[in-house]
């Protein structure tokens, strides 16, 4: 028998530490070589760590959410002394008693007093009346007054208030009496079946709560959002945009696209920003508030807020100004796929100079986007809806869309923000302007 560590391996170039996001094993589990024992997360990706040995887990390195340096002993595994990998059946019989060894003591313990209590019963009839745990731990302890559960009036009242049918509650008190502790146990079982509800109480409050550790990706998002919202005084401008012409153009282009990718609204937005930003260099900038420096960027690297199973990520579309509409569409599709499957490279997730956020059909009437620091502007687009618009003589149906743009008010004045939003509005409303070289 030998106890060997599985160390946290080098999970990526330049990575010195990783956050523990999931344990696949617990102490006492039997693992085989290559079984996944844990998942850790780095800046880039979540990596599953396999076991190097077969054996029993005797120790775990830490709690979920803990950041561990590379090389830490992740788990300790008790292995068979010899190399026994090619005898898969051999460890099994040896492991079974070991497994039992971990769990058995409880059952053996509780079984012993029971048998001695029974011995008492026959040996000392004088002791018969003394209540014994062996009797009282049974849910169906003898209840003398018919089927009525034994419980103090306060326990009964509490059960009624909570919609619990005491007949379903095992009593652990003397003589099978249901105690407040027994009720606590029922209340803490959030998934307690409908059986726990009294017949006269069709509705009952749901009791209990669930604690979810904020770790990994979620923690990173939380920290960034908190930082952005705390540090940056946001000014949000909401404007109404008539996208009828843009939508017509998009439909025409998609009808005749052939083998080219289908165009969504996002490539047009990217093109609009690429067109507008040269006139508004203050928007395509990074503000290092600690150094007190604003860095204006020549190229437009567009961050695209993307929802993935793990949460919000922002892949970056580089040098939009150098790309055609279809190139943009192709690149967007590739990046979002990479982000969704957690395959995006580190450089594909950093370096944006301005960000676009869209919830598509869920885009609501207006939003208050949070800036992606150290950027100074973020453009949110809301849903498109057909609305009646007054054209001067009558109402006409127009496809309308709102845009909600937030700016870092420390470095962008309201007037500049308004002018920039108007510029985007005019480009979106007259899409020819995006492409015409004047």
């Amino acid at each position, binding site marked *: 028998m030998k106890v060997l560590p599985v160390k946290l391996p080098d999970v990526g170039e330049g990575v010195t530490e990783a956050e523990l996001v999931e344990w696949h094993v617990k102490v006492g589990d039997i693992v085989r070589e290559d079984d996944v024992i844990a998942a850790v997360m780095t800046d880039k990706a979540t990596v599953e760590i396999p076991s190097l040995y077969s054996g029993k887990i005797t120790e775990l390195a830490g709690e979920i959410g803990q950041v561990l340096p590379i090389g830490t002993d992740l788990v300790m595994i008790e292995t068979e002394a010899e190399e026994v990998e090619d005898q898969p059946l051999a460890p099994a019989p040896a492991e079974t008693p070991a497994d039992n060894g971990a769990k058995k003591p409880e059952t053996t313990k509780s079984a012993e007093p029971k048998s001695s209590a029974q011995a008492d019963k026959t040996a000392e009839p*004088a*002791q*018969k*009346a*003394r*209540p014994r745990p062996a*009797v*009282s731990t049974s849910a169906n*302890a*003898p*209840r*003398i*007054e018919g089927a*009525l559960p*034994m*419980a*103090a*009036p306060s326990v*009964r009242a509490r059960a*009624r*208030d909570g919609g619990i049918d005491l007949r379903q509650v095992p009593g652990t*008190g*003397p*003589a*099978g*009496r*249901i105690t407040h502790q027994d009720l606590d146990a029922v209340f803490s079982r959030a998934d307690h079946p409908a059986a726990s509800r009294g017949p*006269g*109480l069709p509705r009952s409050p749901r009791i209990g709560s669930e604690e979810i550790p904020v770790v990994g990706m979620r923690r990173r998002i939380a920290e960034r959002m908190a930082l952005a919202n705390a540090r940056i005084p946001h000014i949000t401008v909401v404007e109404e945009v008539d996208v009828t012409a843009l939508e017509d153009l998009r439909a025409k282009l998609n009808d005749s696209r052939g083998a080219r990718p289908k165009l969504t609204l996002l490539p047009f937005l990217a093109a609009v920003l690429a067109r507008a930003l040269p006139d508004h260099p203050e928007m395509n900038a990074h503000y290092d508030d600690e150094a007190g420096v604003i860095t204006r960027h020549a190229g437009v690297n567009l961050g695209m807020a993307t929802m993935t199973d793990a949460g919000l990520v922002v892949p970056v579309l580089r040098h939009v100004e150098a790309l055609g509409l279809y190139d943009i569409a192709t690149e967007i599709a590739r990046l979002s796929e990479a982000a969704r499957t957690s395959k995006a490279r580190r450089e594909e997730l950093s370096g944006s100079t301005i960000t676009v956020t869209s919830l598509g059909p869920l885009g609501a009437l207006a939003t208050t986007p949070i800036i992606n620091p150290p950027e100074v502007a973020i453009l949110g687009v809301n849903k498109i809806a057909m609305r009646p618009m007054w054209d001067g003589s009558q109402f006409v149906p127009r496809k309308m869309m709102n845009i909600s743009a937030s700016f870092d008010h420390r470095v962008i004045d309201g007037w500049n923000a308004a002018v920039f939003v108007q510029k985007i509005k005019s480009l979106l409303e007259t899409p020819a302007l995006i492409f015409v070289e004047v």
Partner: protein
Amino acid sequence: MRQDSCKLLILGAGPGGYVCGIRAGQLGVDTIVVEAAKPGGTCLNVGCIPSKALIHAADEFHAVRSLVGGNALGISASAPSIDLSRTMAWKDGIVRRLTGGVSGLLKKAGTRYVQGYARVLDGKSVEVTTPEGPLRIDAENIVIATGARPFELPFLPFGGPVISSTEALALPELPKRLSVVGAGYIGLEIGTAMAKLGVRVTLVEAAKSILPQYDAELSKPVLARLQALDVGLHLDAKAQGLTEDGTALRVETLGGPQEIPSDKILVTVGRAPVTTGFGLEDLGLSMTGPYIAVDRFCATSMRGVFAIGDVTGEPMLAHRAMAQGVVVAEHLAGLPTLWDKRAIPAVCFTDPEIVTVGALPGAQEGLAVTTFPLAGNGRSMTLGRSDGFVRIVHDPDSGLIAGIQAVGAGIAEMAGEFSLAIEMGATLTDIAATIHAHPTLGETTQEAALKGLGQALHI
């Protein structure tokens, strides 16, 4: 006709009705209580309270009388006399104070009180004949709390020398000879009091024993006391009626017919629920025998109609009615209350007193019994009364207490501990391990529990 309306209308201001009214008022339920007689019902006016007052007066009189001549305590006293009219005035004062208290409590709770005789029109409305003329009350819910009245024997109708407990508790003077038909707890309580006041009392009971609902062990100390008080006793005997001149009770005994000369004949053969004569029968409520059938919320078979107290059957006890009243009030106020009592204590203020709570021995198979005599209790000796015992019926395996009974002078005040034990699901160990103050009669309960565990100390 004047009209009124409310959410809850209670018919009867006895212990059930007035408690229901107070609790409903406290919970903000718009409530009216209608009472034909006085607030307090049978209990306060012609039952529990006046009978306890009479028993107390009789005990005092008897105590002084028993001191006449030599006694172990060394007290000398001369023969006492009693002016029963003053005794009755004292008793009436207590009753007045209590019934006045009930009116005040109802008022304080914000519940309206209407004096008058109600007639049920339908499940939502009644017409009350009040001193100010008829009043129609429409209610969302009606509670029937009309109680019970003494059962009348057809061959011994009330009137003349034949009286019920109501008249017996308001006699202007003591009869010389009193016959009591029915040796249940009411007959025994009043009969014993009369005997102590010097009346020649004869009990006539159709069953083979006094207090037929209890076992012989419980009634034996009472029987012994009756004999010591020189009370005549005819068991297995059936009253037949009055002699023609009305001065004697005709009784068919095992030894043949007898005539018992009597100035008054008290008939206490039970109480009948008041469920007819005021329109209730037209509702067609489901009945259980003569009683209104109710569920765990005291709801009857008609929606919005509830019943509490004696109209819902045995045991006809004030504290049961009160607890039912609370259930109905809280239920109608939207609280999750229901009837889930494990035990209803019953007390006979005989001499000695009897308390019973929960299961009697043999109520269920496998129950064990542990009994501790008052003779082993110091306090009972200092009170000069060591007759009686405390008896605990329990499960021999778990020690769970199923019932407690006790007989003894002053033992009625221990009823609370007995009921609490059963409601809490106590075991013998719970009582045995609880310190009971010394020297009190209550130690007997602890000793009985210890004895059941094989650990008795003082026996």
